[in-house]
């Protein structure tokens, strides 16, 4: 716990509270019985399947399409071109007004006369089965005129580089410049200035269930039901209505089980819009399930940043300034509606964030290129900002001969400094960097690891220890999207209803992606209401049935959706005791609901079962006092208002061995502060899963493109996701600094692991290779790169110790 003062009992300490307990997830049995309701499995009467013929070129004009033979093929219902579909679905532009200067070009559901990335849909084949549609797809002949492809983001802005969208004038989508404090003076006055270039590979989310949609336009009602694996049903309802020319009320988005999202499924995908448009055109259900190969080419990619970084330090280790210059390539369009400028914007916002350092200069440029679009993926911008910050801090420590722990102790924002703000104006309510650091060092037994490292060095075994402190944006209010004009709700709602047997149903606008939202909502409501968990059922993911809300993204479901559920549960409890007071002729204030029964609050003695209360309310309301109306349904909404974001913080450490260019992960430790922990098992799973995705980006995952914009590894054989065999044990510890913005005090936990893991691994690798004078700052850290860095270090003569066996000659 952060605070030394024992906290007083709060509403969370209600008898039989489920808050803070690792209760089993109510949906677990259903999923493990194979009874999940995934869109991929959905079959509707008269349903047909769409397959998209996709551009094999990164950039090409479409001269002619000959689909005559495909139209005659077995089982084919329709063959539709982008030009034909544009009659049904209007194009969009992915900009937000608060990203000043952000520009993008109109994007259609399918390419109309030009394809701008390898994988863009050009022709839709609708057939009775997916296999028949694939057969017919091979019969479509498209005459392409290949155009020069812009693939290198570092030259995308050069005058000789073709402009992808001539109407925009150049390939610059967005630029942000920021100066806080007086970085020029700080760098001039510094005892040491250390510079480094950092690279972050383009990678993607690889959800277990690919993107999937069944669009069902009913000509009889004029309604479109979109069964869609999405994180934001109401956002999609709005967007489908705008671009299909329908009222929002005529759109229903249903999102039951989703096989993983990680941010991949919070965006508007052209082929999903096309699928909805095809259903409207054909007046029947149309199913699209991306196969694994097209997932690699059409799911959003992320990262793909190159940065120059600088840090200024005094001889005593005080950090006096940070500076970064970031370039990122986002593909040919800014993704709708959240835009592809957010990641670079986050990098600018977050770099240097854990440290008390007022001087900061940043530039970020976001450029167009002819590759798959990039957008928000788990821990948007955080792994980049954290790796640059923590990489520079470690380089500075090495330069001045300071232990990496000591430089952090000296510079991390003090735990008693809150509330305070970062150089970029981020407002911190209460963070716990130092408490987290202390706990981490104890968990990992830092002195013992250092001793082991030193002993093994003498035997030619090279191990490294790396740290990464970080901050994380969670629980966003309207500042993220609403203020930029996007109709993406930052509030969430919950409806809690008690039926005649006393059983409870919750409708929530938070959504379940496999991470356990349903469990957390049920725990919160059961606790607020005072009922056993097993009588609480949660309904989510249906715009016809749930309150209007944001859904699940930016680590918000538990903190925002959970608080709405908490308030609704409390409101229903007040209604229940009001009814009980009327029935029992007792003062409602003397009653409570505990363990599923109305009890005397003072003694805990049961006064009335909820089943009996329900019987009276619903079947014998005539026995209630005149004028008294029971209300066994309560609605509450919540949005954080005190702070634009609830920042969390944490620190990670990696212990690893480098041999023959390969990194063997030996241990990973995380201390994380997400405020109140609603379900420790789910939080730890989120942290571990996030760490694994971070380790993937650090060591394995990369979308490799050639100079023509062709992805070279778009399959599970060649795109390396992190696998269990290579993962270390991940130990998770917690500090708890609740946010006072909500009663629950819960902040987000879903992205913390991903935010810090790559930086910790990078610093550990560089610690292991420090004796050779080799420093790696380009992810992923592949054997190629490690061997090459060692070779270069040896050629420079930088090594001050003999190279071990196994370094390249």
């Amino acid at each position: 716990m952060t605070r030394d003062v024992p906290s007083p009992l709060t509403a969370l300490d209600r008898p039989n509270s489920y808050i803070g307990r690792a209760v089993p997830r109510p949906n677990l049995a259903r999923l493990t019985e194979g009874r999940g309701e995934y869109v991929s499995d959905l079959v509707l009467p008269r349903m047909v399947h769409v397959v998209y013929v996709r551009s094999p070129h990164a950039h090409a004009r479409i001269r002619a399409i000959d689909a005559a033979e495909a139209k005659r093929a077995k089982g084919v219902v329709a063959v539709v071109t982008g030009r034909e579909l544009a009659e049904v679905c209007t194009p969009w532009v992915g900009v937000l007004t608060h990203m000043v200067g952000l520009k993008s070009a109109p994007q259609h559901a399918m390419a109309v006369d030009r394809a701008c990335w390898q994988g863009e849909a050009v022709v839709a084949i609708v057939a009775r089965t997916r296999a028949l549609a694939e057969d017919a797809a091979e019969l479509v002949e498209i005459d392409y005129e290949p155009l020069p492809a812009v693939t290198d983001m570092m030259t995308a802005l050069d005058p000789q580089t073709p402009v992808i969208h001539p109407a925009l004038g150049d390939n610059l989508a967005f630029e942000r410049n920021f100066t806080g404090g007086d970085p020029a003076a700080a760098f001039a006055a510094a005892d040491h200035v250390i510079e480094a270039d950092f690279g972050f590979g383009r990678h993607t989310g690889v959800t277990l269930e690919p993107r999937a949609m069944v669009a069902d336009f009913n000509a009889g009602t004029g309604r479109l039901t979109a069964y869609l694996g999405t994180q934001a049903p109401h956002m999609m309802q709005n967007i489908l209505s705008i671009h299909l020319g329908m009222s929002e009320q005529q759109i229903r988005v249903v999102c039951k089980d989703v096989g993983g999202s990680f941010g991949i499924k919070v965006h508007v995908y052209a082929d999903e819009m096309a699928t909805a448009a095809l259903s409207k055109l054909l007046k029947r259900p149309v199913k699209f399930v991306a196969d694994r190969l097209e997932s690699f080419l059409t799911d959003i990619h992320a990262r793909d940043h190159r940065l120059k970084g600088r840090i200024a330090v005094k001889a005593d280790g005080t950090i006096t300034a940070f500076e970064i210059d970031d370039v990122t390539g986002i593909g040919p369009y800014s993704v709708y509606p959240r835009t592809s400028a957010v990641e670079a914007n986050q990098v600018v916002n977050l770099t240097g964030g854990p440290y008390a350092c007022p001087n900061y200069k940043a530039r970020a440029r976001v450029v167009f290129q002819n590759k798959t679009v990039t957008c928000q993926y788990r821990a948007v911008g955080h792994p980049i900002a954290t790796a640059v910050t923590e990489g520079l801090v470690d380089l500075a420590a090495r330069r001045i001969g300071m232990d990496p722990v000591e430089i952090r102790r000296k510079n991390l924002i003090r735990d008693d400094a809150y509330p305070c703000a970062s150089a970029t104006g981020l407002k911190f309510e209460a963070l716990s960097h130092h408490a987290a650091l202390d706990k981490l060092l104890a968990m990992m037994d830092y002195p013992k690891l250092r001793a082991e490292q030193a002993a093994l060095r003498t035997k030619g075994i090279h191990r490294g220890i790396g740290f990464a402190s970080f901050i994380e944006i969670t629980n966003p209010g309207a500042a993220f999207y609403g203020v930029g004009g996007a109709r993406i709700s930052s509030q969430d709602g919950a409806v809690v209803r008690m039926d005649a047997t006393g059983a409870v149903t919750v409708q929530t606008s938070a959504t379940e992606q496999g991470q356990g939202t349903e469990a957390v909502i049920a725990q919160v409501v059961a606790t607020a209401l005072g009922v056993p968990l097993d009588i609480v059922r949660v309904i989510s993911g249906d715009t016809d049935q749930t309150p209007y809300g944001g859904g699940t993204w930016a680590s918000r479901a538990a903190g925002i959706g959970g608080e709405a559920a908490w308030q609704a549960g409390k409101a229903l409890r007040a209604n229940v005791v009001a009814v009980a007071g009327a029935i029992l002729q007792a003062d409602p204030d003397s009653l409570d609901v505990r363990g599923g029964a109305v009890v005397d609050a003072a003694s805990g003695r049961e006064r009335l079962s909820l089943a009996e209360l329900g019987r009276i309310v619903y079947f014998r309301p005539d026995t209630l006092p005149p004028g008294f109306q029971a209300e066994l349904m309560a609605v509450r909404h919540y949005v954080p208002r005190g702070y634009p974001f609830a920042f969390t913080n944490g620190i990670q450490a990696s212990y690893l061995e480098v041999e023959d260019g390969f990194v063997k992960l030996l241990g990973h430790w995380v201390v994380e502060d997400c405020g109140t922990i609603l379900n420790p098992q789910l939080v730890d799973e989120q942290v571990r899963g996030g760490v694994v995705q971070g380790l993937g980006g650090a060591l394995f995952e990369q979308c490799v493109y050639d100079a023509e914009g062709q992805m070279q590894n778009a399959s599970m054989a060649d795109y390396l996701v992190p696998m269990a065999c290579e993962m270390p044990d991940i130990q998770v510890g917690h500090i708890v600094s609740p946010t006072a913005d909500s009663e629950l005090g819960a902040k987000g936990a879903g992205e913390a692991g991903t935010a810090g893991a790559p930086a910790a691994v990078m610093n550990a690798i560089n610690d292991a290779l420090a004796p050779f004078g080799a420093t790696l700052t380009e992810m992923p850290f592949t054997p190629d790169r490690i061997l090459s860095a060692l070779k270069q270090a040896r050629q420079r003569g930088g090594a001050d110790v003999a190279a071990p066996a196994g370094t390249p000659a």
Partner: protein
Amino acid sequence: MKPATFAYARAQSVAEAVAALAAHGDEARLIAGGQSLVAMLNMRLSAPRLLIDINAISGLSEIAVEGDGLRIGALVRYTQALRAPLVARHAPLLTRAIPHIAHAAIRNRGTLGGSVAFADPAAEMPACILALGADIAISGPDGARVVAADDFFLGLYETALGPADMLTGLNLPLHGPDRRVGFAEFARRHGDYAMVGLAATATARGAGLGDVRLAYFSMGPCAVRARGAEQALEAGDLDAAVAALEADLDPTGDIHASRDTKMHLAGVLLRRVAGQLSEQPQ
């Protein structure tokens, strides 16, 4: 990811399979474990008109000592071989190598014969067969024949198998008391195709080694012997053996490893495997 339409025939005998191949030529493919072929079908990288399923042919799933050799039928699965005491005793190289092949689900279905016939340049089994100096039993339109491993692997997915030939089994020399085996590979993740791999056999001659066979995989269009390095090892000069790899091997870089990385790691593997070859048997 749906295969193009194909016809399916279940062969009941080797003769039937060979006859079907002869009748349909390039438009037919044999399917055994299907662990490479089905993925290629689903990605439409291969679209045969006819799949000839050989899984029902009896007598091809057996492991037996016949004369001075260990016979492994074409339908023996990796898992079966890994658990077979005869393999552990007479072909310990396979027992070392098989755990490196993909993952359990794939090893349960994939066949040793299929891997040798497919001749993926990055696969473990062709290199093991080459290191062992095994014989490959083949049935074709003109009857049965045996081809030595040294003559079997000809190029990228190219082998001594003709268009109507079927691999029916592998004949491995029995492991003797003086024989030594070694195996190691580098892969980005456990179970991936190797970036570089080495299977080796030798005969202990006092403190030294004779009959050294070093078969590299993922270092060329097919499994390849490093003959210069073999001679240097027989001469007892490990450094010279590593140096000889420059002339023995000519890999091309790929997205997982540059040519430099592959060559460097090939040397690391040779030192590692040479150590294994020098170990006394337990």
